[in-house]
C-alpha cells in the first residue's frame, strides 16, 4: 500500500516562535508589563533581536541565561532595585509570579502604586524587568540550568543578595509557578485531537442498491481549538490512514533512538 502523499505546501508545522512574546498571551485583563510603556515595549523589541544567540555560556557582562545582551528593562530593574525595600520587593515579586501564572494583577498593582512612593514609570520598569527575568529563567529546563549559574548571573547584574535568594526560590524552589494550564504552557501548536468518536455501519440497502452490504466508518473528531469535524472514511482510505499512522509511529521510534537526540544541551 502506498504511503500517503507528503504535504506539498505544508503549514508552519510545529511553529517554534522566532520572535518572543513580551506579554503573557491569552491572559485577558492580566497586567501586561511589557506593553505598559512604549519605552519598555521597544526595549523588549531590542531584547528580542539580541536573543537567540546562545543561552549558554556564563561569565562576562551580558552573558548567562539572558543571552549576550541583557534586555534593557532587566537592567533598568536591577538599577531600580537598589532603592527598593524588601517588603515592596516581595510584593512586586508576588505580582510578577501571579502574572506568570496568568492571573489578573490589575488590583494588586494599583495597591502597590498607592502604598509606595514609586512612580508609575519606576513600577513599570520594575515589574516588566522582573517578569522578563523570571520568564527567561523558567524557559530553561531544570536538568541543565543550575541554581549556582542563575545566582552568578544575577550577581553580575548587581541585584542585591537577599533579592537573589527570593528569585532563586521562585525558579528552583517550591514557589516555581505551576506549569500546567498556565500562561507558561501556552504552546504555539496546531490543534490536537481532544475527542475521537466513531461508528462502523453496514449499509444493507440504499435508494440506488437493493443489496449493498457495504461497510463504512463514520468519524467525529473534536479538536482542541473547538472545531468538530464529522466525516465518512471509506474503508480503503481507513486502511491508508492506519498504515500512515503506523509508519509515523515507527519513524518516531527510530528518531528517538537516534543520536540526534543526544545533541548536547
Amino acid at each position: 500500500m502506498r504511503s500517503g502523499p507528503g504535504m506539498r505546501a505544508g503549514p508552519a508545522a510545529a511553529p517554534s516562535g522566532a520572535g518572543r512574546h513580551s506579554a503573557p498571551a491569552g491572559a485577558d485583563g492580566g497586567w501586561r508589563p511589557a506593553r505598559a510603556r512604549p519605552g519598555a515595549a521597544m526595549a523588549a523589541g531590542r531584547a528580542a533581536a539580541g536573543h537567540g544567540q546562545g543561552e549558554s555560556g556564563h561569565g562576562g557582562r551580558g552573558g548567562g541565561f539572558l543571552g549576550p545582551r541583557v534586555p534593557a528593562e532587566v537592567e533598568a530593574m536591577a538599577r531600580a532595585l537598589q532603592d527598593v525595600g524588601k517588603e515592596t520587593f516581595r510584593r512586586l515579586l508576588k505580582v510578577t509570579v501571579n502574572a506568570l501564572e496568568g492571573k489578573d494583577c490589575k488590583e494588586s498593582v494599583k495597591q502597590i502604586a498607592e502604598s509606595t512612593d514609586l512612580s508609575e514609570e519606576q513600577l513599570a520598569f520594575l515589574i516588566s524587568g522582573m517578569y522578563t527575568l523570571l520568564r527567561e529563567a523558567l524557559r530553561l529546563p531544570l536538568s541543565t540550568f543550575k541554581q549556582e549559574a542563575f545566582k552568578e548571573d544575577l550577581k553580575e547584574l548587581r541585584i542585591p543578595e537577599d533579592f537573589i535568594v527570593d528569585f532563586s526560590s521562585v525558579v528552583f524552589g517550591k514557589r516555581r509557578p505551576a506549569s500546567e494550564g498556565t500562561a507558561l504552557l501556552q504552546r504555539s501548536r496546531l490543534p490536537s485531537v481532544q475527542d475521537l468518536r466513531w461508528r462502523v455501519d453496514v449499509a444493507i440497502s440504499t435508494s440506488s442498491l437493493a443489496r449493498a452490504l457495504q461497510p463504512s466508518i463514520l468519524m467525529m473528531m473534536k479538536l482542541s481549538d473547538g472545531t468538530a469535524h464529522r466525516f465518512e472514511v471509506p474503508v480503503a482510505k481507513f486502511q491508508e490512514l492506519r498504515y500512515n499512522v503506523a509508519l509515523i509511529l515507527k519513524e518516531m521510534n527510530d528518531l528517538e533512538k537516534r543520536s540526534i537526540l543526544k545533541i548536547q544541551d
Partner: protein
Amino acid sequence: MAAPVVPESDSIRRAVSLLNAVDPGRFPRLLSRLLQKLHLKTESSFSEEEEEKLQIAFSLEKQDLHLVLETVSFILEQAVYHNLKPASLQQQLQSIHLDQDKAEAFASAWAVAGQDTIEKFRQRVLTPQKLETIGWQLNLQMAESMQAKLKSPRAVLELGVSNEDSKTLKKVFVEFSHQELFEFYNKLETIQAQLDSLT
C-alpha cells in the same frame, strides 16, 4: 418471475416507441456514456452543445430527446438497483416491446460496464463530508516561545475532507505528540477489529 423492473407506464411506452425509431448505429455509444456518468448525481450527462448534436443525430425534438435520455437512465438505474444479469435485463426490455437489436445493445453495454457501475454506486455515501486525502509531516520541535531545549517529536496530520456540495477540499491539520499519536493508533486498531469481525 419477479415483478417487472421497468413498469409499463405511458411515458415509458412513449419512450420505447421513440427509442425503436432511433438509428441503432449510435446507440451503444450513448449507452456507455450514460453508464459512465450514472453515479454522479448532480451532473447531467450532456452539455447544451452535445444535446443539440444528439437532437440532430437521432432526429428528435428537444422534449423527446430528454424523455429518451431520462428513460434510458432510469432503466440503467433499475438494473443497478436490482443487480440484474445482462440476460434478464434484455428479457425485461423485450417484454416492454423494445426492439431486439436495442435490447441486445443494452445487454452488451451492461455486461461490459455493469459491475463497475454497481461498485461506484456502492462507494457513494450519504454523508456530505468524506475523507479524501491523507498527508503527514514528522517534525522535531527544538524550542518554542515558552520553553527552550525541547527535542520533542511531533507529527502533523493533514486530512483532506471533501464537501459534497462545494467540491473543495477542506484541509484539517492535527498535531500529535508521540503519546497522543499512540492513543490515536489504538483507536484505529479498535475500529479495525470491528471491521474484521464483520467478515
